């Protein structure tokens, strides 16, 4: 395990260099481009969060957009309250229009920034925990998890659209104030803001890596392979699955908060089926077995979407659809798997030239043994 730790560090460091140095320099610190990349990074963060539960624990969460959107709405509620300070009763404009008399209790705490920042992670986690306990205590796995989370996603979105009085309905929360962070008025086109998002991504990535490189990650991998066998070693499988699910939700909520800062509004489309499936696709394109790769997948696909729609305004989705099909057919393990097998192949050629004799000896030794076993 120690050697993997070292290579993890290399991957992490290279990713950090990409985010912190290469991208800002490549766009020569242009405000618009940094804002765009900040958006991609936030989306990469959600994709990474999904890899944590899908890639490691085999929990395909088609409702990953729920914690993301909750984080987004919570941040937006705070900013909306800031923007509504001059309104009668501090009531957000849309509430006035829908005849809400007083600020509802669940909006009250979000006057406070610390509460908002904590809730942006805690609320998605709490909801995820409820759902996780509900599912995993019942030993729900595979496609059933996918369908339950999908149905849950649709239901939550409907609630948000229906309760227009409290959530802004289909329009979501708009007309937000800029965030005041420790006296700093966050400008989402600034270099500092880009670095804020990048550092958040790197931090969440570090947390994710620590989790999957610890024994927890090992147990999760074992669960993905054979959950009942893990139980016979005394592990409470449901609890491990819940942990993965909740950590994933926490990071998604965090990413959602950043996303609102980038785009300056929260919308129920953040918890739409299309968006939620898109997260799965980013994760798959990057490679769900690696957190760094999944994050990159989120960044690359979004970048590509942006590029394609720029180059072929008519019919750019053609290329997008084709890309997904090709990735699944040619690179089932994503770009990560593709690169991995390419390098492994290259490595093998080199090795076989150097230590061919030894390899052959090993191979025949193993082969002989297998034949032995066959004839019992």
């Amino acid at each position, binding site marked *: 395990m120690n050697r993997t730790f070292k290579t993890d560090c290399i991957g992490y460091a290279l990713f950090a260099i990409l985010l912190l140095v290469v991208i800002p320099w490549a766009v020569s610190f242009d405000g618009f481009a940094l804002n765009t990349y900040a958006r991609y990074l936030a989306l990469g963060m959600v994709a990474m969060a999904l890899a944590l539960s899908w890639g490691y624990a085999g929990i395909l969460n088609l409702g990953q957009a729920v914690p993301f959107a909750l984080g987004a709405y919570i941040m937006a509620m705070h900013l909306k309250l800031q923007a509504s300070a001059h309104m009668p009763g501090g009531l957000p404009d849309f509430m006035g229009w829908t005849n809400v008399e007083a600020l509802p209790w669940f909006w009250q705490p979000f006057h406070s920034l610390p509460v908002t920042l904590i809730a942006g992670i805690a609320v998605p986690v709490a909801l995820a925990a409820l759902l996780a306990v509900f599912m995993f205590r019942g030993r729900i796995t595979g496609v059933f998890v996918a369908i339950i989370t999908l149905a849950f996603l649709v239901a939550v979105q409907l609630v948000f659209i229906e309760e227009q009085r409290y959530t802004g309905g289909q329009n979501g929360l708009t007309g937000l104030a800029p965030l005041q962070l420790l006296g700093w008025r966050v400008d989402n086109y600034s270099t500092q803001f880009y670095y804020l998002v990048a550092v958040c991504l790197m931090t969440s990535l570090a947390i994710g890596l620590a989790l999957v490189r610890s024994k927890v990650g090992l147990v999760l991998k074992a669960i993905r392979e054979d959950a009942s066998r893990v139980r016979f070693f005394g592990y409470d499988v449901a609890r491990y699955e819940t942990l993965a699910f909740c950590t994933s939700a926490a990071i998604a909520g965090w990413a959602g908060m950043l996303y609102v800062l980038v785009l300056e509004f929260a919308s129920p489309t953040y918890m739409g089926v299309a968006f939620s499936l898109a997260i799965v696709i980013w994760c798959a394109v990057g490679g769900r077995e690696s957190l760094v790769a999944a994050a990159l997948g989120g960044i690359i696909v979004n970048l590509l979407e942006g590029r394609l729609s720029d180059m072929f305004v008519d019919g750019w989705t053609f290329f997008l659809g084709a890309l997904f099909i090709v990735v*699944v057919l040619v690179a089932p393990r994503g770009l990560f798997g593709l690169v991995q097998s390419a390098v492994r192949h290259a490595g093998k050629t080199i090795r076989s030239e150097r230590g061919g004799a030894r390899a052959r000896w090993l191979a025949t030794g193993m082969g002989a043994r297998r034949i032995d076993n066959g004839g019992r």
Partner: protein
Amino acid sequence: MDAFLNQAFAGLSMASILLMVALGLAIIYGAMGVINLAHGEFVMLGAYSAWLLQTSLGLGILVALPIVFLMVALVGLLVERGVVRWLYHRPLDTILATWGVAILLQQLVRSVIGSESRYVAGPTILDGNLVLGGVVMSNYRIFLIFFSLAVVAATWFLLKRSEFGTKLRAVIQNKEISECYGIRADRVYALAFAYGAGLAGMAGALITPLVSVTPSMGTYLVVDAFLVVIVGGVGSLLGTVAAAGMVGEATAMFSMLMNDTIGRIAVLLAIIFLIRFKPMGLFPDKVRR
């Protein structure tokens, strides 16, 4: 009482549409484990095929049905041969690939036919309503209910009584052994996929008199159809019928008591609970696992 009966009929009518969309999906998912997110697009293609046949050849949708079935089944066959057949051993990946197919098909229609909404005339012989006391039932919807049941019956016959069905069931049970007996599993899969797609196409053609035909019309349908299939239980025709009936009726009843949005939320939550406590579906195989 009339209100209740009217609403019960509305539920049946919703169920019949749901059933026709879900049936093809149930076969594709039940037989091959393929999670086909492009299913809604097959429905959409069916609707566009009906439009095409009506505007270019003047065929009414009922006359056009067999042709629509064949057209969409052909598309299904191409999708299966081109994409899906490589993915039988990794079912979760089919989610991504078929999503890609869905995007592709939508854009194809948009580029070739245009993004505007299309009009397809309903069959005039089924205009009008049947009035029984205070209950008003649209003739077309009555027709849909019976037609959907007929499709189920035909499918049941195909699966249980025909040679193709026997082969399909053999392949589902054990692909390797079936191949030893000379069944060409890949061909059976391809035909089953095409059949499922064709059913979706027919459903698409049949709903054209009720809805708006647009390139993105399928997206709304696929999620609901999937929920029905899973609630009904994998590979159980009876389960799919029962699940469609339940979801349709539940939607109608909740909608009568509250409103359509809350009705839908309630149905979704009920589905979540059903899957949680009965993951094998309404009518699971009673075999020890």
